[in-house]
C-alpha cells in the first residue's frame, strides 16, 4: 500500500517541478535589461506591459488599440528588434475596471516590467499610485484628463481635454460666433473633465454656458435633460458623452424640437452612434484627432496591415496613437540603452517634433504630452468632411 503511494507522490512532485521549470523558462517578463545582457545566442527581450480592456464593455477599444501596438512590435522585431533585443508586449486585460487594472499593474511590477501602456481616465487614476510605488512609467494612449500631467511617472501620446476641447471652444465661439451654449456630458471621469476643459476655455473666450446637464453613464432616455436645455434658450449645444450615448442625445434633441447647432468630440463619429442618430447626425460638427489612411504612404501601409490582421476592421485614431506610442518607446529604449523609466521619460519629454501617421506630432512645452493636428469636422450627407487644414 505504501510503495505505490510513495511512487505516486514522487512522480507528482517531479512533474510539478518540471512544469514549474517550463513555465519559468517561457516567461516573457524581464528585469531592467541593458544592452549588455546576452543570453547564450540571443539578447534578453525588452518587455512593455499593456493594460487595456480586451474583454467587457470596452473591448472594442482594446481591439483597435492592441491592433496598432501589435503592428508596431512586429515591424520593430522584423527589423532586428531594439539593438538585437526582441520587443515583447505583455498584455493584461483590465476590462476597463480600475480594481482589475491595479491587480494587472501589480502583476507587471512583480514581473519587473517598468514601462506600461494604458488608457482610460479611471484606469490611469487607479494605476498611477502603483506606478509611483514601483518606479514604473505609465504611457497613456486614450485618457485625456489634464490632471495627470503633473505626475512624473506619466506620459501621454494623446492630446489632453484642454488641447482638444480648447479647439472645440474656439470653433464654437470664434468660428461659429455662438456666445451662449448648453453643455451635456456623462458623469464619469471623461465627461466631467471634458466638460470642465471646454467650459473653462469657452468662458475664457467670452462665452456663456446657459445650462450644464450631467447624466448617468449608459442612459438611453435624455428627454428630461434636453427639455431643460431647450428651456435655457442656448444658441448651440455641446455634447461630451461616451460612445453609445451621443447618438441617442443627437436623435432625441431633434425629436424634442431642439434645433440649434450641435457639437461634439471624436467619440461622436463611432459607427454605432452615427447609426443611432440617423438623419439627425446631419449638420453635427466637432473636433477630432483623425486618422486618414490616405494622408501618407506610411498611413496607407499601416491601414492595410491593420485590416489584414484584424478581419477587415479599419484602424482609427486610437490604433494610430497606440502604434506611434510603441514606436517612440522603442526609439527611446534604443537611444537610452534599456528600459529605465526615468531615462525613457526624459527622452520622451525631449522629443522636438516627429513625423507620424497622424501628421506632425509635437510636444506641448513643459508637459508630458505629444499632440497632433486636431481637425474640425462636419458630418453631412453620410460623410465626414474636414473643415480646417
Amino acid at each position, binding site marked *: 500500500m505504501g510503495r505505490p503511494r510513495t511512487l505516486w507522490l514522487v512522480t507528482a512532485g517531479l512533474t510539478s517541478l518540471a512544469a514549474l521549470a517550463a513555465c519559468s523558462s517561457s516567461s516573457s517578463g524581464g528585469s531592467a535589461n541593458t544592452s549588455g545582457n546576452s543570453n547564450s545566442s540571443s539578447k534578453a527581450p525588452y518587455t512593455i506591459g499593456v493594460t487595456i480592456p480586451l474583454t*467587457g*464593455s470596452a*473591448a*472594442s477599444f482594446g481591439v483597435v488599440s492592441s491592433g496598432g501596438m501589435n503592428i508596431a512590435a512586429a515591424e520593430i522585431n522584423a527589423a532586428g528588434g531594439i539593438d538585437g533585443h526582441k520587443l515583447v508586449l505583455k498584455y493584461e486585460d483590465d476590462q476597463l475596471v480600475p480594481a482589475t487594472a491595479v491587480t494587472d499593474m501589480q502583476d507587471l511590477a512583480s514581473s519587473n516590467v517598468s514601462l506600461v501602456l494604458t488608457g482610460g481616465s479611471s484606469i490611469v487614476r487607479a494605476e498611477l499610485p502603483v506606478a509611483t510605488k514601483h518606479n514604473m512609467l505609465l504611457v497613456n494612449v486614450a485618457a485625456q484628463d489634464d490632471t495627470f500631467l503633473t505626475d512624473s511617472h506619466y506620459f501621454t501620446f494623446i492630446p489632453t481635454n484642454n488641447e482638444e476641447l480648447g479647439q472645440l471652444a474656439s470653433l464654437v465661439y470664434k468660428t461659429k460666433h455662438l456666445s451662449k451654449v448648453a453643455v451635456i456630458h456623462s*458623469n464619469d471621469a471623461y465627461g466631467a473633465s471634458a466638460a470642465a476643459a471646454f467650459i473653462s476655455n469657452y468662458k475664457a473666450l467670452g462665452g456663456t454656458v446657459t445650462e450644464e*446637464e*450631467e*447624466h*448617468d453613464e*449608459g442612459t*438611453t*432616455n435624455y*428627454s*428630461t*435633460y434636453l*427639455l*431643460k436645455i431647450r*428651456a435655457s434658450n442656448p444658441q448651440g449645444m455641446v455634447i461630451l458623452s461616451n*460612445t*453609445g450615448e451621443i*447618438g*441617442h442625445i443627437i436623435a432625441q434633441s431633434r*425629436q*424634442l*424640437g431642439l434645433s440649434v447647432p450641435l457639437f461634439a468630440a471624436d467619440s461622436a463619429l463611432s459607427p*454605432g452612434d452615427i*447609426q*443611432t442618430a*440617423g*438623419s439627425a447626425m446631419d449638420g453635427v460638427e466637432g473636433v477630432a484627432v483623425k486618422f486618414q489612411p490616405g494622408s501618407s504612404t506610411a498611413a496607407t501601409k499601416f491601414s492595410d496591415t491593420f485590416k489584414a490582421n484584424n478581419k477587415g476592421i479599419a484602424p482609427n485614431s486610437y490604433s494610430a496613437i497606440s502604434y506611434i506610442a510603441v514606436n517612440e518607446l522603442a526609439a527611446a529604449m534604443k537611444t537610452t540603452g534599456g528600459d529605465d523609466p526615468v531615462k525613457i521619460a526624459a527622452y520622451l519629454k525631449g522629443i522636438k517634433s516627429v513625423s507620424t501617421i497622424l501628421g506632425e506630432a509635437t510636444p506641448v512645452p513643459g508637459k508630458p504630452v505629444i499632440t497632433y493636428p486636431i481637425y474640425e469636422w462636419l458630418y453631412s450627407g453620410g460623410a465626414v468632411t474636414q473643415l480646417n487644414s
Partner: protein
Amino acid sequence: MLLLLLFVSGGMQGAPIALAGIGFAIIWYTTKEFHFLYGTLLATSGYLLYSLTQHGVNIWLAAVIVIAGTALIAAGLENWGYIPLKNPLSVLLFSFGLAIVLQNVLQIIYGPANLIMPGNSLESKTLTVIPGTQATAQAIQLVALGAAIAVSALLAAGFKFTRTGLAMRAVMRDEEVASFVGIRPRRLRLLAYAIGTAIGSLGGIFTMINVGTSPTAGFTTMLYAFMATFLGAGMMTRVPLWGMLIGILLSVEAWKLPASFATLIVFALMLFYVIVRERFGRIKWRRLQASPVPAEAKP
C-alpha cells in the same frame, strides 16, 4: 411651460414602467414569488424582436412571436423550475442566478453596448401631444401609452367579470382557501407567469423600438416595476397608476432640481410614502379595534 413638457415626457416614460409593473404584479400577487429573471426577460424580448426582424420577419408578427414565446418560457420555468423548489428564498436565488446567466449570454451574443432597432417610422415620427404647445412624443411612445391604458382596462374587466379573473383574485387573497373551493392554484400560477411575462414583454418591445436595449437594461425596469407593485399594496388597479406616477416623477423633479437627482428623489418619496402609509394604517387599525361594536351587530 417647462413643467408641462416635463409632465408629458414623464408620462411617456411611465407607460413602459406601468406595463412592466402590471406584469410583475400579476406574478407577485398570485404566487408571492420574486421572479428576479423578469427584468432580463424583458430585455431578452427586445433582443429577440431585433433578431427576428433582422431575418426578415415582419415587426408585428415578430412581436406576437416574442410575446408568446416569453410567456411560454416563463410558464415553463414556473412549472418545472420554481414550483419544485417549494421555498420562496430558493426561488429568489434560483431566479437571480438565471438572470445573471441570461445577462451574460445576451452579452456574448449581442455585445455589451446598447443595441438599437434599425430606423423605423414608429421611432422617428414625432407627434404633438397637446396642440398649441411644444409637448411632443414619438409615435411608439404614444402606442405604448395606449397599450398600457388598454391592458389596465382589460385586466380590470377580466378580474371583475371573468371566472378565471375571479379565481385568480381568490388565489391572490389566499391560495389555500381558494383550493378548498375547487380552484386549482397551480394552473393559475402558470397562467399568472404567462400573462405577467407577456405584458412585460410588450413593454420590453416598446422600449427596444424606442431607445434600444442592453443586457443590463431590464434590471432598472424591474426595479421600478417592483416599486409600483409594492406601492400597489395588493390592488392590481393601482399598479399601473403608480407606474405612470413613477415615470412622471422621474421627469418632473428636474423642474427645479438637477435632472441627475431623479432616482434619488423618487426613491426618497417612495420611502416617505411607505412610512406614512404603514403608520396611518396602524392608526386606522387601532381606531377600528378601539371603537365599540353597535348592539344590533352583536350575535
